[in-house]
C-alpha cells in the first residue's frame, strides 16, 4: 500500500502497523466529559429529565463516534427535545455547550491548542449563516450558503498548500 493510498486508520510505526479508528484516543479527551456534563445541565434546565436521558445517550454515542458526529447528533437532539416555545437563550445554551466538543478536539497533552482557529472558523461560518438567513429567510438557502462557503474555504486552503508545497507526491 502506497503512502498516498494508506488508510488513515492504519498507522505505520517502525515496521509494525497500529490500527486505529474513530475510537482512537486522539479523538477524545477528559475535557469531553466536562463538556458533556455542561450539555446535560443545559438540557436539564431546558428539557427536564428527557434532556438528561439524551445527555446519557450522547455520552454512549461519544464512546464510539468522534466529537463532530456527537456534536451533530447533539444538535439534532436539541432541536427535537427543546420545546419550540422555549426562549432563544434556552435553545442556544445547550447548542453552545455542544460546540465545546469541537473545541476539545484540539486538546493534546492536556492542553487546548489552536482553539482560536476553531472559534474563528465558527464565527466566520456562523456569520455567513446568519447573514444568509436574515437576508433570504430560507433554511435550504442558508444550508447551501454554509456548504458553499465551506467548500470555498477548503479549495482556498488547498490552493495555498499547493503553491507552498507543490503537488502531493
Amino acid at each position: 500500500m502506497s503512502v498516498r493510498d494508506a488508510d488513515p486508520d492504519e498507522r505505520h510505526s517502525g515496521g509494525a502497523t497500529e490500527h486505529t479508528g474513530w475510537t482512537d484516543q486522539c479523538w477524545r479527551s477528559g475535557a469531553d466529559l466536562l463538556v458533556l456534563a455542561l450539555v446535560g445541565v443545559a438540557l436539564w434546565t431546558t428539557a427536564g429529565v428527557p434532556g438528561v436521558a439524551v445527555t446519557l445517550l450522547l455520552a454512549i454515542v461519544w464512546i464510539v463516534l468522534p466529537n463532530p458526529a456527537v456534536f451533530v447528533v447533539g444538535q439534532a437532539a436539541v432541536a427535537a427535545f427543546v420545546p419550540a416555545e422555549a426562549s432563544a437563550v434556552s435553545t442556544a445554551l445547550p447548542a453552545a455547550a455542544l460546540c465545546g466538543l469541537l473545541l476539545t478536539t484540539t486538546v493534546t497533552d492536556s492542553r487546548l491548542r489552536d482553539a482560536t482557529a476553531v472559534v474563528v472558523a465558527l464565527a466566520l461560518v456562523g456569520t455567513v449563516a446568519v447573514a444568509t438567513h436574515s437576508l433570504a429567510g430560507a433554511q435550504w438557502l442558508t444550508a447551501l450558503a454554509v456548504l458553499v462557503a465551506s467548500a470555498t474555504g477548503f479549495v482556498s486552503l488547498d490552493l495555498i498548500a499547493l503553491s507552498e508545497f507543490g503537488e502531493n507526491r
Partner: protein
Amino acid sequence: MQPTGRFWVLAALAVVAGGWAVVVGSDAALVGVCGVSAWLLAQQYRFLVGLRAVSAALELEVASSASRTVTEAATFLTVAAQVEPTHSLTLRVDPSVPVGAEGNAESLILEGRAADVRGTFELSWPVAGTFRFPPATLTARDRLGLFEQTLQPSTERPTVTVEPRRPRRVHVGEGGDPVATGFGQHKTGRTGRGLEPTEVREYVPGDALRRIDWKATARLNETHVREFTSQTDRETRLVVDHRTGMGTGPPGESKFAYARTVALAFVDSADDLSDRIGCQTVGDGGVTGMFEPRADLDHLQRIRRHIEAVEPTPDSDRATPQRPSPTPTSPARVQAIGERLDGDSSAFAGRLRPFFERPDAYVRTISDRPLFRAVDAAPSTLGGARWTVIVTDDGHRTELREAVKVARLRGPVLVFLTPTALFEPGGLEDLDAAYEAYVDFERYRRELASLSDVSAFEVGPADRLSTVLASAPGRDRPTGRNR
C-alpha cells in the same frame, strides 16, 4: 494536500446535517452544519500551519557510511530527522534505496511531538556501478488523520561507487621489482630483412648488394646497408591453472583473480597484435577448457568469456581428498640410491630396494598431474614462433618445473606465479614468516628462470608484496634478477 477518507466522511456528515435541518425546518438544526463545516476548515488551517512549521524547521540528514565499496560488501545508511516540536503532525520519513542496493530501509516515525528520530540500515551492493540515493520523502499527517501531504525535503543525496571485486594493484615482476614494460608487446629481436627500418650500418663482406642504401652511402662516403626489423605472427599457448589452490585469498582478490588478470592481458595483447592464441584451463580433474590457436575475434572473445567464467575448483568438487602432493624423487637420484643399495646386504637395504627398482616412478607420478598433462598434450606447432604462457601458483613446484621443461622444447616459456605467501589468510600477521615464505618462493622462481628459454615472473598484490618486503628489518631484499 490530500484529504483522507476521514475528512470526506465528516464532510458528508455536514451535508447530511444541512439536509436534515432543511427537512425538519428547524433553525437550531442549522447549527450542526455550521459547526462541522467550520470545524473541518479549522482543522485544514491547522494542518497548513503545522506543515509550514515542519517545512521550515525540519533538518533531514541522509548519510552513507562509505562512498566507495565493492560488490557484496555492506554499507550503512543513516537517516536522521530533527524538527522543533511546535507542531502536532505525525511525520514519517521514508528513506529510499538506490536500485543497485539491497536492503530494507524502514520508515521512521516522528509522532507525539517527538523532536528527533534516527535510523541506521544495512545495505548490500550486488551490482557494480555508481549509485545516488534517491531523495527521502516526508509524509505529514495531522493528528486526527484528516489530511496528508508528502514532501521531498532538500537534503544531501550521498553517492556510492560500487566496484567489482577484482585485483586493485597487480604487481608483475621479479624479486619484488615490477617489470618495466608491459608484457605482450613483442618483436623478433632479430634484424635483417623486414619492413621497418632500424639502422644504417657499414657494409661488411657477405651482405647482399641489394641491401646497400645508396643514399646513405652517398651521404657518408662509405658503403652502408640499411637494416630492417621484421615482425612475426607469434603463436601463444596460454595455460591457466584454476585448481583448488588458486582459490586462496580474499573474495575477488584470490590467486586466481590475479592469474586471470594476467591471462586476459595476454588475450588482449594477442588481439592488438593479431597473434594467434590458444588456451587451456586446468582444474583438479584435468583440462576444463581447450581452445586451439587462432586469431579471429570470435575466438578471442570465446577465450575471454571462458577465462572470465572459470573459477577455482571448490574443495568439495575435488575428485580425491586434498592432501599434500608428495615431491617425487628425480630419476638420477633414484638411480644413485639404487646403486648404493645394490651393494648393501642389510635387511634395511633389502626392505628399501623395491622402492628404487622402478626408475620410471618419477615420470609416472608427474605425468598424472593435470597441469603437466595439459602442457604435455599440447600439439607441436609447425614453424613460426611459439610461446607457452603458464599462469599458476607455487603450490605444485615439481609438477610445474617438469611442465616447463616439456613446454620449452616447443619454444620460449613464460611462467607467471602467484606466491602463496601473499595470499594466505592471516599470512601477513607474522611478517617474518611471510618474508621467509616469500624468499622461498623467490628461490623457486629464480630456479625456473634459470632454465634456458624460460622467464618466470611473480604476480600478486603490490601492496601486500611491499608490506612483506618493507617489514623485514635487517634482511636483504631478495632482489636481483637471475638472468
